């Protein structure tokens, strides 16, 4: 872990990614304190009447929506869903993918054939349609979105981790551990796993990015939880109120935030790539 | 005029955190017909030196000083294209992993004739004839020219590479650990072959190796490299029988031998100097059992001997040191 921070301190792209990501996490954690208004509360003008589609002003830094809600507050509260979906799915994806990859690669034989067979089937499923169907069957809600994302994306990391485990298990130091009397599970989790963790971390950060994208897409397509403010949902309401071209202050912030957070994921991925493959550092 | 003349050559690598002086002020002459062994441990700069000679340094490496004169022409100033023409034809190179440099999708015979045809005007038929002769020379079956590299064993591939490097009768062959990956018997067969072939047309060779037994068996001159410098150079019999530099003495006594009485093998404890730092005094001072205060600073004196030279501050007591160096206690830490 110490190495990870060392690399980040030298790798500018990774560091910037980390800073952006941490800022979003902080915003999400303190969202209730930071948001100036209740995101669902309808704002009124001083002279009376709903503050519909107000451009940015001192009262509403990012303006208001068609329903007269404060965009900044929606953005801040919406970050919670993005960060939650991103982090939870990424951790689940990495956990499942890494374990399945390790087990398949290390034990080989029938275990490997079955697990990799499942992976092949998963590869046959188209991502977004599957997620949409799952969410519409199970009903909208953050947990179902996360489930859909995890069910699909673990396939990517398990493939790569398997090939890593496959090459690591033939290394001499694994043979040496076997000679010391180490059990299979010990070899797998004490000797092989630490050597693949940097690669898992690449997948944590990139699958976080893709999870956020997916969540936004699902909400934008109207399948998000109507009771939850999320960035995708903001885009969806903006689109369905036909205000896309009239109110740039409404449409741009969620788009920008999604891009930024997704980007931070890929940037951190770059940093982890250097941990995993120190040769890249010399370039 | 010597065939190859290295004059005060220094080579540096640029690293992310500074410079590394891999070769420091090396001078060496190779005459026609010479087989020079270049020995040293890993990281001593021997591979860098030969890459410098044939202009194949990696992009962060550069000859910062001195000249590499081959037949009166400074190779270090030669354009890449001209140098490319000289490779194979005048200077050819055999590396440790050369056997992996055969292209797996072409027949070995075609690869050899291609090298010949690129440099010499002759018909394809004549080139194939030449390849057949070469195969005879290196002890491979002519019929094997029709085979693909994967049908060869390691030793056969290495022989094929040697055949290829000899195809144009180069004046100088640079061989970097050409037989290290091979078994003893095959290694000896190949070394003997190369020697006989070179003798045939009085070609020269620089043989880079870590194994002084190989040098003893194949070379007539030997240059011992340590920490970026040739610390001793001379006739192979003189250097290996009566070494003048303490490092050479140690190296000689570290080698197992099948003949003679079974003396204790010695070991030179410690590690070679860090070439990214400036070295003051003798390069070998940290591992030398004979180190004195005068060894610890300044340049070491250059002492010329009959067949070569060496650098050692205690040059006036070498005979005595040699006696001590034969005792294994001398080297105990």
């Amino acid at each position, binding site marked *: 872990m110490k190495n990870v921070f060392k690399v980040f301190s030298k790798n500018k792209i990774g560091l910037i990614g980390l800073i952006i990501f941490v800022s979003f996490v902080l915003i999400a954690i303190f969202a209730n304190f930071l948001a100036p208004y209740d995101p669902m509360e309808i704002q009124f003008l001083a002279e009376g009447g709903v503050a519909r589609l107000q451009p940015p002003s001192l009262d509403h830094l990012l303006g208001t929506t068609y329903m007269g809600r404060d965009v900044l507050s929606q953005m801040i509260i919406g970050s919670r869903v993005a960060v939650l979906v991103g982090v939870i799915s990424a951790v689940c994806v990495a956990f499942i993918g890494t374990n399945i990859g390790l087990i398949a690669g290390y034990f080989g034989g029938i275990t490997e054939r079955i697990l990799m067979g499942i992976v092949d089937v998963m590869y046959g499923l188209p991502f977004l349609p599957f997620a949409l169907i799952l969410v519409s069957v199970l009903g909208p809600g953050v947990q179902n979105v996360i489930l859909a994302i995890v069910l699909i994306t673990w396939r990517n990391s398990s493939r790569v981790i398997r090939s890593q485990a496959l090459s690591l298990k033939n*290394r*001499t*130091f694994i*043979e*040496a*551990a*076997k*000679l*010391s*009397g*180490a*059990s299979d599970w*010990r070899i797998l989790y*004490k*000797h092989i796993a*630490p*050597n693949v963790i940097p690669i898992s971390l690449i997948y944590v950060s990139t699958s976080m990015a893709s999870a956020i994208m997916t969540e936004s897409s699902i909400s934008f397509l109207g399948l998000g939880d109507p009771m939850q403010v999320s960035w995708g949902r903001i885009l969806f309401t903006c689109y369905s109120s036909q205000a896309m071209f009239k109110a740039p202050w409404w449409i741009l912030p969620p788009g920008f935030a999604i891009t930024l957070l997704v980007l931070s994921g890929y940037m951190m991925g770059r940093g982890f790539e250097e941990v995993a493959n120190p040769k890249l550092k010399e370039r | 005029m010597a065939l190859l003349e290295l004059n005060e050559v220094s080579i540096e690598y640029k690293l992310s955190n500074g410079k590394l002086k891999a070769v420091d002020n090396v001078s060496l002459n190779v005459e026609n017909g010479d087989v020079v062994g270049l020995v040293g*441990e890993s990281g001593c700069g021997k591979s860098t030196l030969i890459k410098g000679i044939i202009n194949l340094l990696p992009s962060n490496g550069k000859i910062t000083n001195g000249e590499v004169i081959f037949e009166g022409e400074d190779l270090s100033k030669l354009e890449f294209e001209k140098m490319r023409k000289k490779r194979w034809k005048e200077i050819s190179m055999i590396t440790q992993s050369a056997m992996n440099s055969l292209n797996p999708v072409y027949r070995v015979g075609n690869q050899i004739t291609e090298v010949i045809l690129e440099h010499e005007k002759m018909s394809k038929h004549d080139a194939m004839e030449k390849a057949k002769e070469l195969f005879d020379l290196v002890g491979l079956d002519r019929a094997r020219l029709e085979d693909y590299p994967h049908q060869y*064993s390691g*030793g*056969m591939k290495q022989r094929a590479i040697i055949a290829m490097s000899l195809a144009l009768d180069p004046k100088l062959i640079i061989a970097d650990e050409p037989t290290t990956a091979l*078994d*003893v*018997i*095959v*290694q*000896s*067969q190949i*070394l*003997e072959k190369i020697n006989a072939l070179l003798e045939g047309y009085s070609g020269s060779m620089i043989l880079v190796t*870590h*194994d*002084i*037994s*190989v040098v*003893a*068996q194949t070379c007539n001159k030997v240059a011992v490299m340590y920490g970026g410098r040739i610390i001793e150079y001379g006739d*192979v*019999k003189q250097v*290996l*029988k009566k070494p003048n530099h303490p490092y050479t003495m*140690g*190296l*000689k006594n*570290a*080698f*197992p*031998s*099948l*003949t*003679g009485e*079974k003396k*204790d*093998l*010695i*070991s*030179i*404890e410690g*590690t070679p100097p860090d070439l990214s730092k400036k070295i003051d005094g003798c390069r070998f001072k940290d*591992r030398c059992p004979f180190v004195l205060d005068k060894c610890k600073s300044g340049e070491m004196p250059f002492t010329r001997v009959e067949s070569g030279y060496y650098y050692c501050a205690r040059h006036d007591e070498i005979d005595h040191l040699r006696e001590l160096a034969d005792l294994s206690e001398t080297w105990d830490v």
Partner: protein
Amino acid sequence: MTERTKVIEAIDLHKEFMVKIKGDGKVREIKSLKAVDGINLHVCKGETLGIVGESGCGKTTTAKLFLGLHNATMGSILLGDKDISHLKGKELKNFRKHAQMIFQDPYESLNPRFKIKNTIMEPLEIHGIGKDKAERYEMAKQMLSEAGLKPPEEYMDRYPHEMSGGQKQRVAIARALVLNPDFLIADEPVSMLDVSIRASILKLLRKMITEKDLAGIIISHDISLIRYISDRTAVMYLGKIVEQGSTEELIEKRYHPYTKALLEAAPNPDPEVKFTLENIKGEAPNPVDIPKGCRFHPRCPECMEICKMITPQEYDMGNGHKVMCHLYGDKNE
């Protein structure tokens, strides 16, 4: 020679692998590769046995059989009076305490993400030796200093990449011996190390084997090196032990033509002793196509008619010196 207790013994040991012969990207044929083809070997307490042979002769497979990393196809390995050739589960884990190995490449054999102390403490932890972490730490420290890394505190918290090759090999030796095994195999323990420090690693191995009264096997391709470290030597060729006996006698008498060839081809550091190669032809054949009769006959300078038909049996030349060659057949008949 006093009769010593046998620690480990292989009786008619066989190991066969099934290999796929590929042609044009498809599996053409499945052939059996007899990596170890009926060998008999034993090692006594405090004794070092050298196994020498060319690459592919089966010496590493033999080592892995002895350690239970492969299961034997036929035959048995006795540790004391227990057959350990097919152990599983708890019994195998228990056996691990008795047999350990030093690998060729110290750069590969240590987990790059483990600190030295963790590498050495791990075997203790696995077998529940030492009552707590602190005691295991002390044991590891003690072992490290026995392996010549002094003061041990300085090395305990390092990672492998912060050490030199020789130091890493010392760590590997410490890890192997911390369990107090009865039996130690070293597979080419110094071939990846610089010549100047090889002797110290060999001396350390030697010292550990004699002091701790272990049975040691040292595998090498270099017969001159074997001369310095082993009491008895076995020469292996294509899966069979063609000659074995006390090292000095084997080198002196060299009954088997293959032993003779190996000895004659070994380069000598003395430039006045040149190798002779008239004796041997070609390279060892691929182990999937072992020649009929004596497997050495196609390369043998003394090949007779009988050699092409019948595999020679092992003949006892006295003093435990055995040779598998028809040349010595009439002596026993």
